[in-house]
């Protein structure tokens, strides 16, 4: 190898190969950026690819119409509409199911007339039987764990008429358009039309999904779909059914698009930050290499080298580092991307298609590994190669520090106030500020890492404290809903008889949709389904957190309190404004008096019991009862829930749902855990990058001060004493950046909390300071500082004085 190289390229080779620690350091710093950018970009591409191949290929509905049961033929009239490409009718039954845990849960059964002729929201077989036979059910793959059953076992469902039926699980399907059971908390099953009859349901449909022709679409504007949907609405009503609701989906948008976007944004931020940090690191190292070789550069010039020749040598060195980094980081980036995509696939219920290494990712990685390092090192190399021969050879002994600036004077004054500090400590402190450019970049790296880390913890604690406040809403332990209304006094009497029940309060309840205004056309522009709860105004069963206006008062009549989730669909709702709610066939007119914080349990509105029950002609009756138990033990509460269900059924009360509060709270919390876990991973990655930066700086410092170390040894410093000088310096940098990061983390976290709150809870989070997060970072940054300086410090102590004094 060496024989074919010109001497100057041999020098480049020697620089690369001769100083392995330094080479490793530079490669690592470039690799961090290449890895992060490569991972994020290819995760993004893989995600897009997999999402479209899973969800996109399932022919997601442009819109869905929900109506009273109708005959199958009616679907043809929708299919024949101009602009409709495909239409398909289905039947949905919402019922109670008992799986392996002997516990009743909510299940969504879908009956499809012809499994081989699916056209919209296509369900795909995964294993077992296909299509479902008579009396059989196929489960969505995400529902298996939720129910705790597997193929071959049976589940018991309770028909809306109150009868129990057994269905055999014969296979598993994949329904890309469903939110996984883990998040929705309900299971999905698929049956045929014959099975529908066994469940006491008529052999009719109640939903039409349709896909519009691509030509009618105008970008992502839902208006053309809505127009066609309205025509489909009248078609169905002409066929003598009542349509409740038209749900229009934004064209080409996944139902959880906003969450997907949020995660993509976070990943992109992570990638860009890592790229910045890695570039800082590289600039530091390249500057140090040039400073170290100042004399060599002078010598090369003395024997006739031109500046551009030397420039080319060092840039080649940087290029070589880049290529080596690319070799390491690119495969790791692909692995990282497939891990991220796998994780996302589980969350959003799509099939992860495995590793792919597209050319554009490779090109981007190539740019990050070569172009950016070359550009970034251009300035330090230009500076470094500018040294004159005279400057270079007149340089000997221990190199001085940068010029004495204001910062040094300030430091001197501060140090004078602590005369008890030992000289090694003074040395560490002054050394910290010795190379200001390097210190600045190192501090920037660590500060960014620390800021993000602490901000994540602050957001997390704000999120949890907001959640805790929101969940204080639930003062009851169990809620039971009925399929029809019963006399309130009867319900309470039945419930209070059951041992373990401390208090019970029955409420009116119905569901409806908020209309945009009073006009007739507004009916098909209604909101999604909202729950209308009619509690006594002085109820102690719930404690809604009012964020605007007030709670209901005894003298209120048509007053309405809405929760903040209502605002997502109906942004026109304001305190003092009139609101029309369509419940069944009735239009109820309310005045909004207050807005309550969402409890992550869906859109809910509250109206005073007497007036509202009268308005829906259910005076004195109730459809739900809230129960406080005598025990605080979660298991006992769950058990009591089961007892309640059995006992009430025995007394001919038909039950829709039994919700145990603590289980509901768990589910709500777990939704946020995914978000905070993601943020935490991001924070930890940045912490690693920060530590790498500090380790890099400390290694450079050791390399640069090798001669000083020798002198310290010569005047009696033990290895421990020398190591201490470097560890204290690293600690100084770590703690200083920790403190700056702490100050910066507050506004960053406040901003982030606001965004996260608005995105997920429709109102800003209540900001809560986390001593835990800040403390963790301060300790972690100190620990990282010690670890980051230990290896360089140890290398420093292993140098013998002779090596050092003769060191150049």
């Amino acid at each position, binding site marked *: 190898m060496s024989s074919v190289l010109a001497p100057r390229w041999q020098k480049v080779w020697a620089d690369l190969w001769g100083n392995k620690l330094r080479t490793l350091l530079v490669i690592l710093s470039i690799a961090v950026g290449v890895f992060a950018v490569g991972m994020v970009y290819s995760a993004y591409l893989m995600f897009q690819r997999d999402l479209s191949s899973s969800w996109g290929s399932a022919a997601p509905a442009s819109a869905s119409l929900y109506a009273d049961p109708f005959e199958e033929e009616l679907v043809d009239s929708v299919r024949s509409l101009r602009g409709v490409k495909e239409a398909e009718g289905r039947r949905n039954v919402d019922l109670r199911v008992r799986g392996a845990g002997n516990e009743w849960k909510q299940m969504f059964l879908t009956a499809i007339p012809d499994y081989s002729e699916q056209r919209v929201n296509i369900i795909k077989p995964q294993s077992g039987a296909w299509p479902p036979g008579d009396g059989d059910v196929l489960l969505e793959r995400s529902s298996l764990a939720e129910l705790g059953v597997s193929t071959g076992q049976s589940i018991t469902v309770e028909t809306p008429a109150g009868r129990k039926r057994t269905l055999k699980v014969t296979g598993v399907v994949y329904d890309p358009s469903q939110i996984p059971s883990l998040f929705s908390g309900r299971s999905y099953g698929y049956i045929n039309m014959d099975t529908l009859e066994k469940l006491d349901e008529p052999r009719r449909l109640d939903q039409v999904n349709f896909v519009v022709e691509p030509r009618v679409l105008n970008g992502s504007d839902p208006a053309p779909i809505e127009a066609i949907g309205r025509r489909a609405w009248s078609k169905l009503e002409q066929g003598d059914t009542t349509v409740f609701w038209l749900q229009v989906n934004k064209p080409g948008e996944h139902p959880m698009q906003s969450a997907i976007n949020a995660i993509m944004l976070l990943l992109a931020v992570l990638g860009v930050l890592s790229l910045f940090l890695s570039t800082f690191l590289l600039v530091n190292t390249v500057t140090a290499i040039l400073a170290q070789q100042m004399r060599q550069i002078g010598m090369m010039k003395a024997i006739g080298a031109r500046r551009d020749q030397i420039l080319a040598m060092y840039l080649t060195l940087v290029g070589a580092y880049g290529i080596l980094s690319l070799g390491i980081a690119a495969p790791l980036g692909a692995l990282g991307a497939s891990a991220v995509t796998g994780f996302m696939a589980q969350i959003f219920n799509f099939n992860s298609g495995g590793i792919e290494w597209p050319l554009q990712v490779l090109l981007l990685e190539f740019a990050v590994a070569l172009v950016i390092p070359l550009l970034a090192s251009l300035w330090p190399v230009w500076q470094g190669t500018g040294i004159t021969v005279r400057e270079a050879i007149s340089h000997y002994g221990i190199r001085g520090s940068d010029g004495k600036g204001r910062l040094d004077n300030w430091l001197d004054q501060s140090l004078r106030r602590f005369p008890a500090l030992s000289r090694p400590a003074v040395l560490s402190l002054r050394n910290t500020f010795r190379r200001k450019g390097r210190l600045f970049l190192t501090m920037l790296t660590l500060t960014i890492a620390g800021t993000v880390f602490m901000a994540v913890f602050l957001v997390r604690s704000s999120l949890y404290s907001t959640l805790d406040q929101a969940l204080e809403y639930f003062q009851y332990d169990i809620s039971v809903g009925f399929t029809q209304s019963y006399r309130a006094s009867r319900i309470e009497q039945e419930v209070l008889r059951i041992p373990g029940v401390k208090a019970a309060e029955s409420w009116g309840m119905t569901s409806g949709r908020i209309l945009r205004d009073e006009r007739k056309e507004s009916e098909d522009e209604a909101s999604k389904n909202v729950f209308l709860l009619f509690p006594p105004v002085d109820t102690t069963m719930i404690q809604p957190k009012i964020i605007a206006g007030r709670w209901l008062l005894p003298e209120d009549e048509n007053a309405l309190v809405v929760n903040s989730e209502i605002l997502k669909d109906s942004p026109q709702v304001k305190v003092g404004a009139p609101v029309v709610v369509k419940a069944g066939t009735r239009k109820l007119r309310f005045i909004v008096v207050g807005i309550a914080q969402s409890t992550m349990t869906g859109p809910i509105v509250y109206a005073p019991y007497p007036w509202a029950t009268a308005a829906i002609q259910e005076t004195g009756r109730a459809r739900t009862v809230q129960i406080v138990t005598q025990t605080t033990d979660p298991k006992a509460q769950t058990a009591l829930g089961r007892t309640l269900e059995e006992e009430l059924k025995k007394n001919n009360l038909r039950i829709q749902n039994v919700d145990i509060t603590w289980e509901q709270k768990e589910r709500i919390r777990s939704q946020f855990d995914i978000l905070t876990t993601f943020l935490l991973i991001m924070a930890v990655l940045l912490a690693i990058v920060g530590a790498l930066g500090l380790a890099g700086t400390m290694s450079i410092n050791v390399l640069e001060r090798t001669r000083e170390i020798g002198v310290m040894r010569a005047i009696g410093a033990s290895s421990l004493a020398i190591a201490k000088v470097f560890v204290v310096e690293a600690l100084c940098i770590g703690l200083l950046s920790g403190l700056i990061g702490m100050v910066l983390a507050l506004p960053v976290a406040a901003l982030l909390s606001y965004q996260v709150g608005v995105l997920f809870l429709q109102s800003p989070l209540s900001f809560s300071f986390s001593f835990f997060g800040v403390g963790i970072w301060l300790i972690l940054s100190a620990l990282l500082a010690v670890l980051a300086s230990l290896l360089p410090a140890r290398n420093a102590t292993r140098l013998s004085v002779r090596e050092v*004094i003769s060191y150049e």
Partner: protein
Amino acid sequence: MFKKWLAGLTAVELPGPVPDAPAVRMQAVRKVYQTGAGEFEALKGIDLVVEPGEFVAVVGKSGSGKSTLINMITGIDRPTGGELWVAGTPVHTLTENQIAVWRGRTVGVVFQFFQLLPTLTALENVMLPMDFCEMYADHERSERARGLLELVGVGDQADKLPANLSGGQQQRVAIARSLANDPPLLVADEPTGNLDSRTAAAVIDLFNQLAGEGKTILMVTHDQELAEQSSRILTVAEGRIATAFSEDSRHE
């Protein structure tokens, strides 16, 4: 494993010196370097005794082995064979880490290029060895360092950083630093190599004064004129001590 890894960083114990020993005693000291061209014997069996209070100049051509000899005595380099006792301590038996602490207390080293730490003031540079070797009480250190700077004639420069001192001033500070722990032995490698002749003469005077106060001084130089101001000249040639003059024999 980690413990072993960290062993180099832990504190050290030193064996106590033998009392009333000579300042330096070398017995058949050899030093062999492995070089690309094979073995190179830099020292070929040196026997030498230096008594306390002597000011010895070591002279010789470049490559004669004089620097190697000095590096042996300061513990900067280690002998391949033979015994080396400095102020009653068997240096050839110490570890690198022990040598550092031993050297700090026993040998003051003065370098050609001064080698002051740039971020510490003159005074702090002089106090540093006391800190490292934990000599003298905290409050005494500053006073002692000031006294040493006065002694070498740069007392008024105490609070300046090395960059703001002239070469001669820096070398004086370096000598003050070498005296910080009151070592019995002072070793200087070309201490005047970077100084003008007037300043160099002043440094030699200072060494003579220190020798008069009982310090043993070993100085490497290639300047015959300066060497002759010492009490004894050792000429090293091809790894052996060629001649040893004492002041008395020279003047006879």
